[in-house]
């Protein structure tokens, strides 16, 4: 603490230097990520429309549903989420290690490799060169380019960590450091075993799901949580409620998450012990999730009014709450009696978006609202656009999640012997009686609902999902405009190294410092 105070002047200058050193590579990563987000949203909308209007753009082979869907998944996963994640990771790493980013130009090269890989991969999928393995559809050359780009990111993270000037390793650094190793480990393993020399049949499915699930839990989740653990205290000006719990949460996540993947194969043609082990791992995930949820909630406790003011906080809290919900839902859905009826339905797509969108994407938006002004030295130009962004994506997501969950549950019940479709029963008996007869029918295992009736029942929900996609696209477009304005200096210039409101700081800072001085003896032990 003393050393910090002595060093205060030096640290302010160094922090400005850190932000300057990160500016170019992080902005390149962020700008690319937004490009891929828009591309991915576009593919998503196409796929969504195709699911209820199969004749839409049906005569172009490169835009058939089976190619647009993986194009959506891979552009948002590797393009949007990973690139936004990498920029956030680099900036957080430098801030927390308190050293500038060295040779930033190399990271621009990494971004170039990554973008090239994505372009090759996406065009490859559309042209029909998909590998046919979910979450890994990019053909081999694209995977190689992605890996080369990532190798640079990993090396730079290690080098930054090795040079660090900060004594303490903050909890976010644990998460980030783990993420930069976990991702290449997963990626290399699957590329070796599935692409270079593919194993056949069921072991392939096990490895596939081991990867696809771990890439969420061991690559995206750590970055999202690291950002939350850093930004939450920063934005509300209060340390994490229980630092001990945050560390415990990290280690328990590291221990249990690995196992969760095979719950995608429940009752499938795999040895039962694999699935059982995976279910146990999934359920044990409750421990890290509850520690994180409790911690976030208690940190925020009493500061909920701040959600009104801070865009960063609003997105981050949305993300943090979604993390809790998605993880608990995931643990629950691994149980056999829920997994078997509902796993192969639209509900699973809803669950996946609750994780990748509502948790990770929202957290990345929040991080960008905090980080980008510090990189460009400019504030966001328009509060109205920020609001359009927030409400577009928040309402859009809520609608999408509800549609997919409700539609998926109905679909799951009908697929598994409800006897008669909900639609028919409602037409015959009205809503209340129709629904209760439907549930009774499922319980009594009344027999098969004709498949095309099930399909017809999902149409309403799929159409509403397209509406939600339009809302999301509007939000994303608003954000892209904000970003362009900020980078091109259409926003207001702000003075000083890193603070958001230096021009306002002086007059209210005094009052706050006074308040802080009054609180200090009670607040901290030292």
């Amino acid at each position: 603490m003393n050393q910090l105070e002595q060093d205060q002047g030096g640290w302010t200058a160094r922090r400005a230097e850190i932000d300057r050193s990160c500016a170019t590579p992080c902005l390149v990563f962020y700008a690319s990520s937004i490009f891929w987000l828009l591309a991915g949203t576009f593919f998503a909308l196409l796929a969504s429309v195709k699911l209820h209007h199969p004749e839409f753009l049906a005569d172009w082979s490169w835009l058939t549903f089976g190619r647009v869907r993986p194009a959506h998944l891979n552009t948002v996963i590797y393009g949007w989420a990973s690139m936004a994640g990498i920029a956030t990771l680099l900036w957080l790493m430098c801030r927390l290690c308190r050293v500038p980013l060295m040779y930033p130009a190399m990271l621009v090269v990494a971004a170039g490799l990554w973008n090239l890989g994505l372009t090759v991969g996406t065009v490859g999928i559309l042209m029909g060169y998909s590998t046919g393995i979910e979450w890994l559809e990019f053909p081999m050359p694209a995977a190689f380019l992605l890996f080369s780009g990532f190798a640079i990111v990993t090396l730079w993270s290690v080098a930054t960590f090795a040079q660090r000037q900060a004594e303490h390793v903050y909890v976010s650094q644990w998460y980030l450091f783990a993420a930069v190793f976990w991702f290449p480990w997963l990626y290399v393993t699957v590329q070796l075993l599935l692409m270079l020399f593919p194993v056949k049949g069921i072991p392939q499915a096990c490895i596939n799901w081991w990867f696809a699930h771990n890439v969420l839990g061991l690559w995206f989740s750590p970055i999202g949580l690291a950002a939350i653990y850093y930004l939450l205290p920063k934005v509300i000006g209060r340390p994490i409620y229980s630092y001990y719990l945050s560390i415990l949460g990290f280690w328990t996540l590291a221990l249990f998450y690995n196992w969760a993947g095979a719950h995608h194969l429940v009752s499938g043609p795999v040895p039962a012990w694999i699935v059982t082990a995976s279910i146990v791992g999934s359920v044990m995930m409750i421990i890290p999730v509850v520690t994180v949820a409790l911690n976030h909630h208690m940190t925020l406790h009493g500061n909920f009014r701040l959600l009104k003011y801070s865009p960063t906080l609003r997105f981050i809290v949305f993300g943090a709450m979604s993390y809790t919900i998605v993880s608990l839902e995931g643990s629950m859905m691994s149980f056999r009696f829920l997994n078997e009826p509902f796993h192969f339905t639209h509900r699973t797509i809803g669950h996946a978006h609750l994780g990748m969108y509502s948790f990770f994407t929202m957290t990345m938006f929040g991080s960008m609202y905090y980080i980008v002004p510090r990189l460009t030295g400019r504030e966001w130009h328009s509060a109205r656009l920020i609001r359009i962004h927030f409400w577009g994506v928040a309402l859009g997501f809520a609608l999408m999640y509800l549609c997919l969950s409700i539609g998926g549950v109905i679909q799951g019940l009908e697929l598994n012997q409800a006897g008669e479709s909900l639609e028919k029963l409602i037409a015959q008996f009205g809503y209340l009686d129709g629904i209760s007869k439907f549930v009774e029918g499922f319980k009594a295992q009344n027999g098969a609902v004709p498949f095309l009736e099930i399909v017809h029942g999902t149409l309403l929900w799929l159409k509403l999902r397209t509406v939600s996609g339009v809302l999301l696209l509007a939000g994303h477009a608003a954000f892209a405009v904000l970003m362009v304005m900020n980078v091109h200096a259409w926003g207001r210039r702000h003075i000083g190294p890193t603070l958001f409101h230096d021009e306002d700081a002086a007059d209210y800072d005094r009052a706050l410092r006074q308040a802080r001085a009054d609180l200090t003896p009670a607040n901290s032990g030292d």
Partner: protein
Amino acid sequence: MNYATWIFLGVFLTFAAAWLGLVFFPHEQLSGLRAQKDADSGQVFPPPYSGEALYGRSVYVREGCWYCHTQQVRGGDYNADLARGWGARRSDPRDYVHDAPHVLGSMRTGPDLANIGARQPSDKWHYLHLYDPQLTSKGSVMPPYRFLFELRKIVGQPSPEALELEGAASPAEGYEVVPSREARALVAYLKSLDRSYEFKE
């Protein structure tokens, strides 16, 4: 500090265990599986794909059929895979020994296809269904795969494999719709999907 050793060992074993459990042991346990040869009839189960069917499988993978169709009949007490008639028995790891990439699938926007060859053996049905799903399954949300077919001018006699299209779907006078090589291979693959054989233990 003494039990630190145990903590470390625990951490390592947990990490190793997950990888061993989900990657290594499944491979150890299952990669030795081979197709079974019936001593009496000399037949092999599951039968290896023909060249045509393998080519069709690559079309199946390329067009992403597996995003909406699973190929697994599950056991378990909470689903109706068997009751729906999607297969005569639960799928076995041995059913997949020829498969790479695996196309187990993760969605049932459309029905399971593990035994579609047994359920729907008609060439004619498959071609019509691929050309325009509405012709065979009104209300389906499956995309039409017209790009796997050729619209040809009839020269001399009409082709025997031309689709029997009626009404609004039929091509202009003097033209016919014939499946491309890819469509023929895809149908060969779909028809080969028949896992109704039994394994001998």
